[in-house]
């Protein structure tokens, strides 16, 4: 029974691959689209732009943050008040931080690209921020403020990986060419250091702050699907309609019990609703077409 299921899935995978190989003509169109929203593009004025704001609510008892033994790096330990802890689950007053929020469906054409790069600091042997979003082609600037050896190893599924060394205070820049939610980044020198990067081919994303809030601005009027991603509690999505010059409010509800069953995808895109039902669910996802261009 199990084997049969596996074979069926393998066939589905093969079929999908072959089908996609057969219609590779879409690549160039996707490339052109990517250029429109590339990092070099100037912020565009969106007529009657509105915004999406909201918060990530959390109910239940969050797990006690895991303490980090930094005795091997006293200089890092000294940068923290008390015992440093892991940042996988950060809950303040019933609000969940470090949730990556993005529009997953409904974006038409370009939008305002953020100028400059997304900054990630290594300070006190932890990544700051713990979760960050960037656009395809936009630079991620990795800063080493610790002045001791870190390596930055990104292990994407749909982008090329990298593993760079920073033995002292310095800055390195990297870019990702394909959308991917999310890309894990670790430091092998310090086994406790990890973070996630979300790569999206438009500027409509944010990460929930310490107060659980997020804002996606400069959104053209229309109806969108907004998807959230959390490394422990998984993905959720909601539809939202942005009125001209309006502000749409969204609230996502996470609870402690979700950790047990959460599916935490790494590597965009996976339909959060289809993943349990059918392994081929990702096929129907519109983002798949944009990413079929591959990384160039």
């Amino acid at each position, binding site marked *: 029974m199990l084997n049969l299921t596996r074979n069926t899935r393998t066939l589905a995978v093969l079929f999908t691959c072959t089908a996609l190989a057969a219609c590779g003509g879409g690549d160039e169109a996707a490339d052109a689209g990517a250029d429109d929203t590339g990092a070099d593009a100037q912020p565009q004025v969106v007529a009657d732009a509105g915004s999406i704001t909201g918060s990530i609510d959390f109910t239940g008892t969050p797990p006690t943050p895991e303490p980090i033994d930094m005795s091997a790096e006293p200089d890092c330990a000294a940068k923290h008040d008390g015992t440093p802890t892991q940042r996988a689950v950060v809950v303040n007053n019933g609000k969940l931080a470090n949730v990556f929020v993005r529009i997953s469906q409904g974006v038409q054409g370009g939008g305002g690209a953020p100028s400059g790069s997304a900054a990630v600091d290594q300070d006190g042997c932890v990544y700051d921020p713990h979760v960050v979003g960037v656009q395809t082609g936009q630079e991620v600037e990795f800063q080493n403020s610790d002045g001791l050896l870190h390596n930055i190893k990104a292990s994407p599924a749909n982008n090329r990986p990298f593993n760079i060394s920073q033995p002292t205070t310095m800055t390195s820049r990297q870019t990702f060419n394909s959308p991917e939610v999310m890309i894990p980044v670790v430091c092998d020198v310090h086994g406790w250091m990890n973070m996630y990067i979300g790569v999206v081919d438009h500027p409509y994303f944010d990460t929930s702050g310490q107060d659980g809030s997020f804002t996606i601005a400069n959104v053209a009027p229309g109806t969108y699907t907004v998807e959230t991603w959390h490394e422990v509690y998984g993905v959720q999505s909601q539809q939202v309609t942005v009125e001209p010059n309006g502000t749409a409010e969204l609230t996502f509800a996470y609870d402690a019990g979700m950790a047990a069953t959460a599916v935490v995808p*790494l590597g965009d895109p996976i339909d959060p609703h289809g993943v349990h039902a059918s392994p081929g669910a990702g096929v129907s996802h519109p983002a798949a077409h944009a990413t079929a261009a591959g990384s160039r």
Partner: protein
Amino acid sequence: MGRVAGMATVACLLGVGPLVAQQEGHPGKPVYDRWCAGCHGVDGQGQGPAAAYMLPRPRDFTQALYQIRTTASGSIPTDADIRKIIDEGMPGTAMPGWEEALSSAERDALVDYLKTFSRYFETDEPRVLEFGGAPGVSDELLEAGREAYQTLECFKCHGQAGRGDGASAPTQADADDFPVRPADLTQPWLFSGGASVEEIYRRFLTGLDGTPMPSYADVLEAGVVTEEQLWGLAHYVRALGGDAPRVREVVAAARVEDVLPTAADDAAWEDAERFWIPLAGQIIEEPRWFAPAVTGVWVQALHDGRELALRVSWNDRSESPDPEWAGWRDQVNAIMAPGAGEQAGGEASDGMAVWFPPPDARDRPYFLMGSERAPVRVWHWDSRSGAVERLGRGLGNLESLPADEGALQGQAEFDQGRWSVLLRRPLLDGDSAAATLIPAGQPVPMAFMVWDGDNAEAGTRGAVSSWYYVQLTEPTPPTVYALPVLAVLLTAALGLLVVRRAQRRVRTPAAAPAAA
């Protein structure tokens, strides 16, 4: 399962799946399926039937992630990079070189076939790095390299002595989350990407993709180090270990006139000749062990006519049980001995054993610690309980010996990723001169086994050698040197005499007609 399958589908969509259409009828396919698929799998995912017996695991070609390249971190390799690995193999891993086994055309076809496992070879171009040429080694350059080893903090993973025992070593994982060790820099002959200074330098800039070893190209570009310092580092790393040691069958135990050393760090050992004895995983007796941590032992032997002293040294990244390595031990146990449970991990102490045929043995016993019929004398050292002599009747079947024969002394030192163990014992068994364990002047069989407790090794799970020999040697008496000289002089004198007599006869007039 659903999640994994879903991701596989997506992975195909996004360009990491194999190009099935290109594989049919490809000239490399029959070669690959016959010679490579056993480990790397027909589908190239590195999960062939033999993969479960390997750590590190075989390469997953669908990721286009190659360790040994001439290209930037994350870049696909060049064709020549892939060909080099096929030709030369990867020392220290299960990957052999195929230069002798396959024709050049077959290997070219393989290179091309491997590329069909990933779409990245269609969409990406290799980003080849510039390396320049190696400057000749000098004291200044080596010193610069020694400093760079500190400023670049290589020791964090590779350890101050380079034995791969740095503070971050126990938590390292490869791209598929299998535990992976930082290279032991004192054994360059096991460097997976080659041991030349040029190859070492290249790896600084390329990193080893899929492993924790990062690229230092940014560091060079940012001016944190100069090219010269990096070349110095390459020379320094290369100098941490020598060439592959020559394996000699017979360990010569020199006779000392002074007292035999009583400690593993005795200065007397510095002048004693070292013999390298390679070890391999014990894969004959169940449960087998395919992931040994120790690659070989250095053996030194001295005797004074009454006792034999052995010093056995080997690189081991931890003094087991080390709590920092507990996670590693559990992982290796789970991966390489699934279902064995914690029991297989034993006490997680380190151990070493060396065994010889007993004094009354007629034939050479079975090399794996003897057998029921033909036992061996086992000198067994354990990092917790010390040294004891036992009777071995097969691997893991040790019997205690009467107390008066338990004259074995042991003393051990652990220093920066290396064990040195001294074992010392009288040559005679009890008072009987007839029962000599190591008779003088003849080679006596000797074999070794080493266990690294933090690598989940105990019992049959460890690294073993085949039979080698130890031979007690006596210092050469002065007559050995004097006699040949005497013989030469005597011969010369005799020759001279003969010549003289012959010449005298020629000059005699009466003899002249006879000679004509």
